[in-house]
């Protein structure tokens, strides 16, 4: 059984015919060639398949492709602009928050949504906001630092940072 859907993918309109049995992750990866979103667990536990739907992170492995109809979908492929890394991507590079990279697209997207929300987050709140992502490599510390840097939080250990910041990370790693 197939259904025609129309949605925005990284700002561009996409018309396609999707199998109703397909997850959005399968549609993106197998049919549309957007392989940035990864398949880790397939059951909503790991966050590797995270994409933004109307600005909100969701696990695309447990989101049917037909549900994307009329929505704005953003994947990691749409984050860098004209070849320039976004602020969030640069923060992940600066903080050494990427090892094998399997969790990175999802984490960058969730962090991007946090930045775009315009809200402030304490370190504990940030941990909660990132809790839907599993990383088998980094131990999370550098990911937290990258998220904090993305949000303009200042690290206590680096020089030249202003004292006033929403939350100061204790940056044991440096």
């Amino acid at each position: 059984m197939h259904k025609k859907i129309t949605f925005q993918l990284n700002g561009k309109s996409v018309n396609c015919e999707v199998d109703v049995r397909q997850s959005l992750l399968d549609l993106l990866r197998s049919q549309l060639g957007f392989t940035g979103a990864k398949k880790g667990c397939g059951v909503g536990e790991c966050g590797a398949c995270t994409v933004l739907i109307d600005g909100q992170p969701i696990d695309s492995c447990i989101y049917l492709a037909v549900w994307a109809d009329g929505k704005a979908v953003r994947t990691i492929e749409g984050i860098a602009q004209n070849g320039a890394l976004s602020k969030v991507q640069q923060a992940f590079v600066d903080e050494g928050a990427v090892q094998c990279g399997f969790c990175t697209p999802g984490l960058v997207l969730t962090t991007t949504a946090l930045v775009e929300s315009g809200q402030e987050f304490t370190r504990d709140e940030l941990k909660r906001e990132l809790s839907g992502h599993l990383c088998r490599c980094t131990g999370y510390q550098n990911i937290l630092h990258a998220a904090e840097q993305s949000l303009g939080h200042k690290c206590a250990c680096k020089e030249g940072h202003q004292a006033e910041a929403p939350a100061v990370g204790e940056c044991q790693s440096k």
Partner: protein
Amino acid sequence: MYDIKNYVEATSVAEATALLAQNPELRIIAGGTDVLIKMQHGSLVAAELLSIRSISALTNITMAEDGIIRIGALASFTLVHQNKLVEANLMALREAALSMGGPQIRNVATIGGNICNGVTSADSAPILFALDAVLKLENASGSRLVPITEFYRGPGQVALAPDEMLTEIQIEPASYVGCGSHYIKFAMRNAMDIATLGVAVVCRVKDGCFDQVRIGLGVAGPTPLRCLEAEAYAVGQPVNQATIGQIGQLALNSTRARTSWRASKEYREHLVTELTQRALKVAIVRAGGAELA
């Protein structure tokens, strides 16, 4: 690919209930965070799905002039958590919403799906039990109201006829006005984990005594449950450590905890007495009572 044999969508309650009346094999899908997992695990095969997620009217959370709070069945846990009415009146429900899953799950999982799924670990259930929530069930010929305390029939079984859907959750002012509440989810991890025990307490305090106490527990039996013996004892008792200690003990009499890989029966029972007291202490302060050490 998910094992979906047939997929239809409804954009209104009338359309959804008409489709259900025509085809009793249709299985409702809302956020899909339980349904799709069941398909991945093979416990649901060749599914005929009725998607109700486009019925946008069912995402609303409102308060009527008479004080009844109505929560649409399709409100996501993110919406419940962010809602101002919930924050102002139903603090423990807000806490329960934030305790479930992770952000990606909360953005799609609905409160109605959480209840209709029928499991004892549903994070919204203990507080909805303690709030004496009433469920509005609709079919093509009309609607009926069922107290949530009568909705659960057994593990995974709820009082929902094949042609019915849950449309809203109602909370009467008598259940929350002047009350304080608190939800404690006890789990192995701080996030992304199913509760080992869930404890929700609602209380009202008058002249230093308990005017009302309601206790809802999850994972303390095959379904969520209330602790009626402890609640009856509490009425009129002075708010002090001795009283809440006794409430914690009596709460145990209503439970039917069992051993699972998450925790032994004995450990769960210990959690019931201890966490009921801890939840009460917070709820008492929120109800305007004095802080107990």
